[in-house]
């Protein structure tokens, strides 16, 4: 495709990060999918002619690959969601010591409000922990500019830089001014320098000293960075704001004095002092943890913040309006929430014809504890399936099953993970079960894609991010290599066979690996079969089919009905019905 610079375009924060990387001459981009960060690397893949990009098996690998590229002189970005940085924390902590050669920016998207995440951790803590600078854009234009700025800081100071986005920056679109790609020659290539790149204690201790010296220089630079600026206005109240919170503040009180912070750590102390001295009262507005606020106080400056601004969930102009006044809702009558009263909840759920449903339905027949994991199958927690009992983090569905079983849990313990999650961090847990003579049952629900984040490739799909054919790693072979001897593969749409396999596994005192394999129909865009309908003469209204939790099966006006527009023809209802009341809908083709 052509990337001729138009002057202005409408880009999401994630697309703008990708664009910024391209414009800055980045040649390496890696990552692992995770909402709200996923679209960064998907957008980078549109520049595949200029940028090598890959979905790595997990975030740790992604950062290590980028670190290697950086040491060879390439400009690199790595993308992940906030909890992904926990996985990549190990390389990050020491990369700060050995430093970078080509610029390296770690793009991390936080999820205040937990729209699509299991926790609400604040990535800014990692900057301080890892002693690396962190930048935080407040809109798409800054997202593009800050990637470039981050790469420049990274090269000038030989440090990785974190770019922290949030859901509302990543998934909001705004006007962005585009430029052409910067011309950068061949990479310099890796230059051997053990005292710089090998942190054995002998060399690591001097690195530690250099690291602190670097932070002192970075703190000076933060004061004069374009990412931080004072916008003087009415001096009766000064507001320190960073990230998306800046936009909410400006929306509500355009006349206020604002210290806008885009380079969050090391803190720009001189600017903070200058700003505080110029206003009568000081308020810090930041999402999640009071990191800036606590630092301002540590400088001996009194301010308000968390006492007025909520620290749980995301902010919005509506939430800040009682604190700051202003807002377009100001003075309008309170809205009438009565309109929404009594509406049926519409939580996300497993799609019609989702192959995961077969496994949850089968598990419903046994008294087992089920340790779940991160992916679409986490939706198996909701009624009527209710077959996920715990979720912790990527891979924990396997390891926690082992721990629960070893602790002496009376019931059989079953762990469930998806295919992408298995390759991400499930293999070591499985190895642990075999090595330490465990007896839990692990079910890998293999739908041949990373479904929840929007169908990304992974090492088991046979395709790379560039769309090339490649190896297709199989779960069963990994299971055998780990030392698991009881391995079964089953088609989860075949309810009878699935129940039988699960029965064999949970009644055994051996570890079992069950691979429930069928592709996600949303990904293949191919329904498994023709829509079904209910033969009213045969249906005895036992409601057994409703236990499938299929959105296409409805209980309306005291009747079971199939919504043929939603039905994907997976025929699980047909297989569970004891009366044979489900049949192929009239007019549809035979399977």
């Amino acid at each position, binding site marked *: 495709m052509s990337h001729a610079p138009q002057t202005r375009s409408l880009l999401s924060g994630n697309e703008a990060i990708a664009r910024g990387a391209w414009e800055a001459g980045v040649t390496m981009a890696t990552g692992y999918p995770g909402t709200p960060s996923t679209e960064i690397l998907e957008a980078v893949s549109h520049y595949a002619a200029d940028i090598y990009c890959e979905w790595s098996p997990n975030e740790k690998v992604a950062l290590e690959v980028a670190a290697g590229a950086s040491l060879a002189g390439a400009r690199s970005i790595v993308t992940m969601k906030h909890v992904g940085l926990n996985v990549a924390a190990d390389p990050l902590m020491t990369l700060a010591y050995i430093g970078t050669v080509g610029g390296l920016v770690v793009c991390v998207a936080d999820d205040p409000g937990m729209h699509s995440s299991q926790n609400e951790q604040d990535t800014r803590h990692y900057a301080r922990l890892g002693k690396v600078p962190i930048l935080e854009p407040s809109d798409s234009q800054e997202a593009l500019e800050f990637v470039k700025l981050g790469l420049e800081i990274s090269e000038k100071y030989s440090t990785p830089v974190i770019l922290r986005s949030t859901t509302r920056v990543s998934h909001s679109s*705004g006007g962005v001014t585009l430029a052409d790609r910067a011309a950068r020659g061949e990479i310099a290539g890796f230059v051997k320098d053990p005292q710089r790149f090998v942190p054995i204690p002998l060399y690591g201790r001097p690195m530690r000293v250099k690291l602190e010296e670097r932070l002192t220089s970075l703190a000076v630079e933060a004061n004069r960075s374009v990412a931080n600026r004072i916008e003087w206005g009415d001096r009766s109240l000064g507001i320190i704001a960073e990230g998306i919170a800046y936009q909410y503040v400006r929306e509500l009180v355009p006349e206020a004095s604002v210290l806008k912070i885009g380079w969050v750590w090391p803190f720009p102390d001189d600017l903070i002092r200058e700003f505080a001295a110029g206003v009568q009262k000081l308020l810090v507005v930041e999402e999640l943890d009071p990191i800036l606020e606590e630092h301002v106080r540590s400088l001996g400056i009194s301010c308000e913040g968390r006492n007025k601004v909520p620290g749980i969930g995301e902010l919005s102009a*509506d939430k800040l309006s009682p604190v700051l006044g202003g807002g377009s809702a100001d003075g309008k009558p309170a809205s009438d929430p009565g309109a929404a009263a009594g509406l*049926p909840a519409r939580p996300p759920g497993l799609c019609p014809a989702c192959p995961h449903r077969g496994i949850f339905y089968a598990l419903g027949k046994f008294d087992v504890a089920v340790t779940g994991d991160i992916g679409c199958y986490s939706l198996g927690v909701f009624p009527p399936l209710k077959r996920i009992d715990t979720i912790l983090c990527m891979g924990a569905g396997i390891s926690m099953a082992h721990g629960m079983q070893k602790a002496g849990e009376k019931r059989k313990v079953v762990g469930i993970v998806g295919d992408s999650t298995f390759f991400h961090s499930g293999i070591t847990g499985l190895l642990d079960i075999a090595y330490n003579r465990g007896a839990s049952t692990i079910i890998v629900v293999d739908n041949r894609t990373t479904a929840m984040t929007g169908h990304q490739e992974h090492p088991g799909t046979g395709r790379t991010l560039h769309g090339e054919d490649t190896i297709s790693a199989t779960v069963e072979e990994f299971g055998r290599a780990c030392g698991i001897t009881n391995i079964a593969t089953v088609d989860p749409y075949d309810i009878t066979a699935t129940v039988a396999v699960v029965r064999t596994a949970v009644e055994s005192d051996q570890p079992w690996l069950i691979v429930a394999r069928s592709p996600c129909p949303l990904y293949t865009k191919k329904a498994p079969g023709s829509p079904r309908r209910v033969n009213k003469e045969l249906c005895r209204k036992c409601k057994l089919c409703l236990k499938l939790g299929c959105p296409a099966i*409805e209980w309306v006006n005291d009747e079971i009905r199939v*919504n043929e527009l939603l039905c994907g023809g997976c025929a699980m209802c047909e297989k569970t019905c004891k009366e044979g009341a489900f049949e192929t809908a009239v007019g549809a083709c035979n399977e």
Partner: protein
Amino acid sequence: MSSSGAVTGIVLVGVGGQGILLAAQITARAALIAGNDVKTNEVHGMAQRGGSVVAQIRFGQKVYSPLVPLGSAQVLLSLERIEALRFAELLSPDGLAVVSRQAIVPVTVSSGQAVYPADAEERLRSRFPRLVYVDAVAVGEKLCDTRVANVVLLGALSTALSLPLESWTEAISQCVKARFVEINVTAFQEGRALAASA
């Protein structure tokens, strides 16, 4: 220089998979083509799996926040009838609600835990003084593609905004594949006609 007075807010709601994101893209693009500063916001990820989905667009001379404040949207477009009620509080008291008659039963209802309101139309009419309540799916069937229901509703929505018609048609041609431009432009015009006669 408060931006809020001059900013137009639009909220699009529905159920995951109905085409909310495309409708939002077309609207934002139309506003941009007409020379506005534009910000949008969408929900991705888990919420898309059959859950309630909301997209927001704001445009004007200068837009800061991508989120539409409560009670301020000029238009609320809903691809599903009761979703309009769920997000009603975002609409300005004098705003226009454009609602599809389509009902999609949530799993909480089909599994017998909750009841789908039988009086949805009455509730819509009493809650929204300015309501365009249309069978957008039927219009799509007439055009031989029910997937254009979202653009039919966009046509109705466009009657409440000051954006020029050319911006909309240009936006449609930028956002859909070439062979689908004609049917979508037709769907858009059908929607405008429906709003005019409502």
